[in-house]
């Protein structure tokens, strides 16, 4: 009798193992590049890898599923500090090569959209479904978040996330509608590596330009036109010629508050209208800058509007917004306060 029941249990287990895959739902998703991929939802393991992952690497963790099933590398402009805050159980990927990733036997691989020709095709050769994400524009966000929701079996969550962004966009748009005279605004990236610094403006097609426009500013670099794919260097003369009313200084690798102080002490800067009137600001940043196409762009949009038009946007409570945003990643209030809100407000460490 005992043996019989053991045998029966074994048989049952075998059958379940054999057919379990049949119970999982097979779904077809059209990714941002228009490719159709079919996979069983939810997949057991997803690997996000490749190059240029800065904007796509965090979005999977806005879903509950990501923490236990999505493996990524941890590096980034903050040296992996933000990634370390997320409580996840998946291993860190240190070797993102095709062979190493294939050896992990993931059920899906996620790559950045414009790396397909350079790297993606090799990953596709493995036969493992590859989904590309873009996260470069607000429109891309709608497609990409919805696709992640489908792939992870969390479509409702995807709708909630998109509703969160839509609410911010609508709120900001309502405020902007009241603006009669748009402020001439310059957003520059301050990058210092070799003892000298360079100032660069983003391409017109990038999210930074969209953010400034949505927030009610008039981006002075709209006529830059030349380079659609990367930051373009501009010199001081050009900035003086634009003579913006507001200057927003982005720094991805160091404290933009320090960069603002550096610029103010450079020859000629004290004669710019924006600097004379105290309208030069370090772009909002906690561990990472809010201006880029990372999920923080909602914060970036709110911050920009409040900075450009404080009188219109006095209803925006930025600390509360930061708290609300990072809760999508399942972070506790204490962690958010200590590691992100306090960092945003921190005094710059100025070198005398």
């Amino acid at each position, binding site marked *: 009798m005992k043996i019989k029941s053991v045998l029966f249990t074994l048989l049952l287990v075998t059958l379940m193992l054999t057919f379990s895959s049949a119970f999982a739902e097979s779904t077809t998703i059209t990714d941002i590049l228009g490719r159709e991929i079919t996979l069983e939802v939810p997949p057991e393991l997803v690997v996000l890898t490749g190059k240029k992952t800065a904007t796509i690497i965090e979005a999977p963790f806005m879903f509950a599923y990501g923490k236990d099933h999505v493996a990524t590398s941890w590096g980034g402009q903050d040296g992996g500090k933000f990634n370390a805050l997320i409580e996840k159980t998946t291993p860190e990927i240190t070797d993102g090569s095709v062979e190493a990733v294939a050896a992990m036997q993931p059920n899906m691989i996620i790559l950045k959209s414009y790396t397909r020709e350079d790297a993606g095709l090799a990953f596709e050769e493995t036969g493992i479904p590859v989904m590309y994400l873009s996260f470069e524009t607000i429109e891309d966000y709608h497609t990409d978040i919805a696709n992640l929701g489908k792939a992870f079996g969390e479509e409702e969550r995807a709708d909630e996330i998109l509703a969160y962004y839509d609410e911010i966009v609508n709120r900001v748009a309502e405020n902007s509608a009241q603006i009669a005279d748009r402020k001439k605004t310059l957003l520059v990236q301050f*990058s210092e590596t070799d003892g000298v610094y360079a100032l660069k403006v983003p391409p017109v097609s990038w999210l930074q330009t969209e953010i400034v426009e949505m927030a009610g500013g008039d981006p002075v670099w709209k006529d*830059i036109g030349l380079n659609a794919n990367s930051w373009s*260097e501009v010199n001081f*003369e050009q900035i003086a010629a634009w003579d913006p009313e507001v200057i927003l200084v982005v720094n991805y690798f160091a404290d933009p508050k320090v960069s603002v102080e550096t610029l103010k002490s450079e020859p000629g800067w004290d*004669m710019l209208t924006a600097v004379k009137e105290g309208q030069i600001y370090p772009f909002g940043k906690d561990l990472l800058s809010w201006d880029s196409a990372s999920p923080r762009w909602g914060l970036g949009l709110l911050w920009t509007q409040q900075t450009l038009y404080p009188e219109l946007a006095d209803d925006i409570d930025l600390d509360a917004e930061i708290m609300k945003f990072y809760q999508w990643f399942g972070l506790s209030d204490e962690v958010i306060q200590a590691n992100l809100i306090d960092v945003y407000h921190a005094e710059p460490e100025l070198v005398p």
Partner: protein
Amino acid sequence: MKRLNQFTPNQKILGLAFLLVAAFAVSCLAGRFPLPGLQSPVQLFSSPLNQTILVHIRLPRVIISMLLGMALSVSGLVFQTILNNPMVEPGFLGVSQGAAFGAALAIVAFNGKSSQIQLLAFLFGIAGLGFSILLANRFHFGHWVMRLVLAGIAVSALFSSGLGILKYLADREEKLQSLSFWLLGGTSGVSWDSLIPIIAPILIAFTILLLLRWRLNLLSLDDETALSISVNLKIERLIFLFCAVLVTSLCISICGLISWIGLIVPHIARKIFGANTHFTVPASMLIGGILMLICDDLARVLFPAEIPLGVITAILGTILFLPIMTNKTIR
């Protein structure tokens, strides 16, 4: 161009000097502020902002562009003459790639300040030349010049692969963007602080080259005959190469790799003045200065965004290259 024959070489040098001064003056007037294009001299001093832009933004940049053009051209001439080969430029013999590697090493590995970058660029520029000469002595075939050029190619390749590794490492920390701009070359980041330390050594090297300029001719002769007319080959070659490497690597440390000028300008100088280095040394400096000023003016004035200087010199170089190579008599 036959009209040029009416003038003596000294008159032509004087003419070029005048052109350089004119190019310098025009460069000081050209900019994006307040409107793209040329300002009137009166306007230059019309407001404090205008003055600041002239003194702190344009002037250091105009000076470094001029020095850069002069340095690359005269060292190109020195290399061509000493190697008795009109097709070489400072990029041969591992100098440019060595200096570039040194500067990149300072940026990536040590997060270097500008003084460290200059020092490492110079040291590796010299090292590039040193390696090339050492390697050339190890080759057991061919003429000295051929061995040296071959060794230079090998050493350049070595340093550029080293540079590739540095770029790869830098990419992980995302320093790549500024590094690659730097490799394309440019003068946009130049301030008085970075310019002042290199002015004196460059001017000293220029002076030495100008004083010894006629003797450079003798180094283009075969070793045997040069020796028979009292040339101290080792020492005189060393003096010329040292000065050429010094000015090249100092400029590379600030401006990055700029191609073509070092190759093309000595040819233009020879087309106008003939081969005599008594004239082509100053002529290369003047023509190089003029051309680089024009290139840099285009880089900073043409569009709101900077165009990498290396791109412009490459375009200009290619445009000039064909007519110069095919037209035999300008002189």
